[in-house]
């Protein structure tokens, strides 16, 4: 089923919808449409529903975390040998989701992919919230979370220092840098729009809050010049980070000697997987939101189609990764590697592996069809399948590898407890809580950049 609102948009010779902005949009209409959302007295009724649901799960998270701090990580299903469980699975999953934002904003900006405009703000916010969710897990996962700061290099009178050979230390730097740069990038892009909202606001408190946040933006040419160059610089900074963060996260595994972890393919394969799941998450959010806020003329089918294409490409890379892992386990002739693959596919968690293959490899092949890419419902479901699949992939990597490694006498299953699930569901709740707050109070599409399309109608065409 094709969205009827796309009907009047132009079609390229290949049959794709071509416009990034519906005809008839003016400066005023763009600003009004976007800025009116945070200034509205009441959000749409569905917002309450979405926010409420997210908030309930957020409360579940607080409950689970309180109990965790009271009792210890033993409330989870982890054990020896599976000493890492859902916390790490969730961490890697969220970090992956947090990749799309910066990828869309920074890399596509540098590549002059103008179609990114409608979705960049959105996906940057998503990145921040996903990284926030991700960043929480390594701390929760610690046996003694109250001393987490020992992992940081701070001047200590005892002269103790982090152990820099450990990838976990690299992780701290990679993730915190990524979060900081993503935050700055997002905020810098937001400043002109905050000023627009400030200018449109009628209530004093709104004027004041948005005014403070707009940092005194007056839209002068000097402002624009500085903002643009800073924005470009940050994009340049963020671009390597997109590649490095998940590479470093993958080192957590590939540096270890555990069969199933110890693999050189991990960095590219993790980065591709991250972008894969990140785009899937953007689609999962964007498809309902554009409907809810009637933004079809700003986030057009062209956007969705492009994102589907990116998913298809990264999905093939990920599938190739799976194939190479299986091949190398055979080709290495190493008994541990061979057994690892056998255990992955046919061991006690074999069904999880096959679920992964279906969710992450087979179902996304539907994206080859343009018809399916143009079908919002199917696209949404495929994106959902990829999100689920990427979570399952991390489960397979973390848990299936650990549960049977070198010493058979120590093999033991990992069975997640209620608290494992509660923390996972709770983190999703936190993510959506933040996401809904963002949609409620900030311009979720870049006003200034969208207005550029009005000024340059040609760039709005393909």
């Amino acid at each position, binding site marked *: 089923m094709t969205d009827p609102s796309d009907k009047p948009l132009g079609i390229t010779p290949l049959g794709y919808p071509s416009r990034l902005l519906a005809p008839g949009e003016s400066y005023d209409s763009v600003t009004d449409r976007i800025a009116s959302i945070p200034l509205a007295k009441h959000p749409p009724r569905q917002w309450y529903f979405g926010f409420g649901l997210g908030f309930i799960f957020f409360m579940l998270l607080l409950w689970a975390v309180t109990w965790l701090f009271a*009792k*210890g*990580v*033993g*409330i989870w*299903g*982890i*054990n*020896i*040998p*599976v*000493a*890492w469980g859902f916390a790490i699975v969730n961490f890697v999953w969220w970090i992956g989701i947090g990749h799309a934002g910066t990828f869309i904003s920074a890399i596509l900006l540098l590549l002059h992919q103008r179609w990114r405009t409608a979705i960049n703000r959105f996906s940057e916010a998503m990145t921040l919230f996903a990284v926030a969710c991700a960043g929480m897990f390594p701390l929760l*996962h*610690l*046996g*003694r*979370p109250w*001393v*987490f700061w*020992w*992992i940081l290099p701070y001047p200590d009178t005892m002269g*103790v*220092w*982090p*152990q820099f*050979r*450990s*990838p*976990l*230390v690299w992780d*701290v730097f990679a993730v915190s840098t990524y979060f900081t740069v993503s935050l700055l990038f997002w905020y810098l892009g937001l400043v002109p729009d905050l000023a627009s909202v400030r200018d449109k606001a009628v209530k004093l408190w709104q004027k004041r809050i948005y005014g403070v946040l707009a940092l005194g933006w007056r839209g002068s040419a000097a402002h624009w010049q500085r903002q643009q160059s800073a924005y470009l610089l940050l994009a340049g900074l963020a671009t390597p980070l997109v590649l490095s963060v998940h590479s470093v996260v993958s080192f*957590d595994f590939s*540096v*270890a*000697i*555990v069969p199933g972890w110890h693999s050189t393919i991990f960095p590219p394969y993790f980065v591709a997987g991250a972008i894969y799941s990140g785009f899937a998450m953007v689609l999962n959010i964007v498809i309902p939101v554009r409907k809810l806020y009637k933004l079809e003329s700003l986030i057009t089918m062209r956007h969705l189609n492009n994102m589907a294409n990116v998913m298809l490409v990264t999905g093939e890379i990920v599938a190739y990764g799976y194939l190479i892992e299986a091949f190398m386990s055979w080709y290495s002739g190493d*008994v*541990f590697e061979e*057994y690892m693959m056998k255990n992955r596919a046919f061991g006690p968690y074999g069904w999880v592996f096959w679920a992964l293959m279906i969710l992450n490899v087979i179902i996304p092949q539907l994206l080859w069809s343009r018809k399916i890419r143009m079908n919002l419902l199917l696209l949404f479901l495929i994106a959902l399948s990829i999100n689920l699949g990427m979570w399952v992939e991390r489960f397979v990597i973390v848990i299936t590898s*650990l549960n*049977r*490694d*070198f*010493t*058979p*006498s*120590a*093999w*033991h*299953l990992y069975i997640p407890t209620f608290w494992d699930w509660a923390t996972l569901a709770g983190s999703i709740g936190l993510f959506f809580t933040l996401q809904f707050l963002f949609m409620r109070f900030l311009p979720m599409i870049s006003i200034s950049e969208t207005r550029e399309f009005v000024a340059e109608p040609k760039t709005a065409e393909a």
Partner: protein
Amino acid sequence: MKADAPLDLDTIRQRLAGTRGRKYWRCLEEVAETPAFEEFLHREFPAGASEWGDEFSRRGFLQLMAASFALAGFSACTKQPLEKIVPYVRQPPELTPGKPLYFATALTLGGFAQGVVATSHEGRPTKIEGNPDHPVSLGATKVFTQAAVLDLYDPDRAQTVLRAGQPSDWNTFVSAMHAILQDQQTKAGTGIRILTGSTTSPTLQSQLNAFLHQYSAAKWHQWEPLSRDNIRDGAWQAFGEIVETQYAFDKADVILALDADFLFTHPSSLRYARNFAQRRRVKDAAGAKMSRLYAVEPTPTITGSMADHRLPVSSAEVEAIARSLAQKLGLEVEAAATPHEEWVAAVARDLQAHPGTGIVIAGETQPAAVHVLAHLINAKLNNSGQTITYTVPAEPVPVNQLTSLQTLIKDLQSGGVDLLIMMEGNPVFDTPADLGFAEAVAKAKTVVRLGFEENETSRYCHWHIPAAHALESWSDVCAFDGTVTLIQPLIEPLFEGKTAHELIDALFQPPGRNSYDIVRAYWQAQKWPNFEKTWRTALNDGVVAGSASPAQQVKLTAKAPSKTAQASGKLEILFRPDPSIWDGRFVNNGWLQELPRPISKLTWDNAALVSPVLAQREKLENGDVVTLKFGGRTLRAPVWIMPGQAENSVTLHLGYGRERTGRVGAGTGFNAYALRTSQALWSGAGLEIKRTGEKYPLVDTQKHHSVEGRDIVRSGTIGEFTANARFLEAHKEPRPERDVTLYHPDEFKYDGYKWGMSIDLNVCIGCNACTIACQAENNIAVVGKTQVANGREMHWIRVDAYFQGSLDNPEVNNQPVPCMHCENAPCELVCPVGATVHDDEGLNVQVYNRCIGTRYCSNNCPYKVRRFNFLEFNAGMTPVQKMVKNPDVTVRSRGVMEKCTYCTQRINAARITAEIANRKIRDGEIITACQAACPVEAIVFGDLNDPESRVVKLKGQPLDYWMLGELNTRPRTSYLAKLRNPNPEMKS
């Protein structure tokens, strides 16, 4: 205040002058009647503290409260609880605070002594080691012995004298006894019965003799649920007298164990294990020799796991095999059919080929006829007098305990028992179900029990006297070979514990001697030359020199025994002692409960062990609850599929399913005694088994018993070894070069000490002594059944059992796995905070204080020897429970990783001693806890830089290998491969 007006001395003088009569004055101010003094008199509190009448009082109150709260808040700034440290007023000369003292004493199991050296830290015993001078310890310990300290501090112990369940006191008890005894004196004590377990205490015996002399009609009965009646009866039938058989496994070339677990359950098992190991250990390939062990047994045991040829047959069939063997050796016995003729014939030829150096040993679970056959065979093979000697039993009055018990029950039923005194034991729970002890004992007029804990029997007792722990008592006891050990206390009874000696003594007039006086008086009466010196030497050494039972010249009077009657029935039930909780007495001991049973690795429960064939036939899976119907009685129990179990035998371990016990033992396991009858004390045919469809969660610590083709356990045969000493290295990855690492290969030089360990799999019997010794030494927490089910047991050294060969009769290879202390340790590289670090002696050190609990180290440990405190496992300990902790080892809290340290506290203790003496630590000066406990000396620790050290020599042997060595972890713990010595005639 206007108090500062100067005193007017003139006015005072006038006032005093004007008084009449006696008027006392307190001070000049009073006489002067100054306003300040008036005020002082009328105020209760000093100025400022009681301004209640003041107009600002409410405000003042609030200020005061605010200040108090603020100050109270400051008091919360310190986490440390207030503890008083009181120094000795008079410090005992032998005691240096911080340095432990060691005392030789003994613990008792089944009446026989386990010689020990107990460690005392500032007056509290914390650790038990074997006594090297004791003939059946030789420095090693059993698991039960190791766990005894935990019992001592058990908060569920009987703590006070109870009269009908209500707290009373010792004096009331003594007067109550005297009232009864006065009455009995007129009847020569016809109504008095005493019930004990097997006892070898000379002092107790003399006390009992004196008592039975005074009350000539009183009777003494003995009952030990794991009775040795069959052995006694066998000796009686063979020789016409009861003698103990002593085996010399160090002289034996060929051993046949007929359902005899001489390496674990035998009272002398530690000695036997040591002797057996002497003949299994090999050095160089040239001329290497090993003894050969054949085992015939219905259920897998430690002895069976060491056998070169193991034949799983039903318990009933063992006699047929013994008969067949006897016949083949030329004895005239009534033959019985066995399908294993070929096997027996090969064994017979092997035994015949080694006359005088063979041993045939039958277990206490086999009927007397098998014991007679064993005696006959040993005599025939000329083993008697060579590998086998006979001695006077250590038990002064050996009786058939089942008959003894039956007589007692008969007397009880007749109502003629006025006073029943029970020393320990739990007959209501552990006597044969068909005898009805509980109903009988209810008919006794007064029942007294001296007991360590309140159990099922306590409910039937009018008086319950708390027993003192062996570490709180003076006593004496004999080892299996008769050697006497004086038991000395290390601590005053923690509660009101009394010893058996004190209880018996209280029955005499005038009572009141304590155990020390009683025991000493007995030995003084023995007319030792130079008593004081001998007494002190005996206490110091832990043995009374030359007290071993003399050898007994015996004459084989038996003819061929007639066949033991066998009940018919396809399935057979077996009753065996539990390898951890024994007859049920250790059920409240967390260390033993959590100790994985040998081979099955079950913890916290017993189960009906079934063979894979039976499981297949009855469609059973592990944990399926079945109804076991035997002799008209039924029991519901979960099954556990046990490879190596005889096809139609179902084993139940005794002692579980206690109804009344402490917090640890409550709700664990199933009561096998409920099916045990006087006709089937050890085994019986006619068991019916029916699936109920229910499940019961059984937990084990090892799910996977195959090595999956990995280089974890290496094993071979002695033949292969003599042909090529390095035969095990073929088809194995060579050890990687030292510099195959990303990091600096010479980061550590190890030019001082270089610690290493060698574990000899060839002699390891898998008895678990190392695991529990480590637990005791290193304050390792007990985590409970649910946590074990979650894979969170904390043992720093575990004993893995790998199976090889057929499911129905696999070879079992035991492998103790402590931390390997790798030189290229994978754990060290991944810790983000450097909580696990290398030291310059090669120890892989865990810094608990620095650990933040990422658990990355455990993931990266290929041996999975790291243990994590997933929860606060040391929470909620009572002050008494805390006393068991070793003060030299940190008690770990929640959220930190821990693992084997090579007993770093022992290394440092030796280092201090050596440094004070300005010398190097000598080889053998550091004995790790696991090494100390090991009965077969399989574990050797030492300095790899000392070319003369034992560990270097062991690591130089051709059988030495690294577990998973191809990973280039360069482990400091290496193994000596396991060898078997199969009979070339037989197919294994």
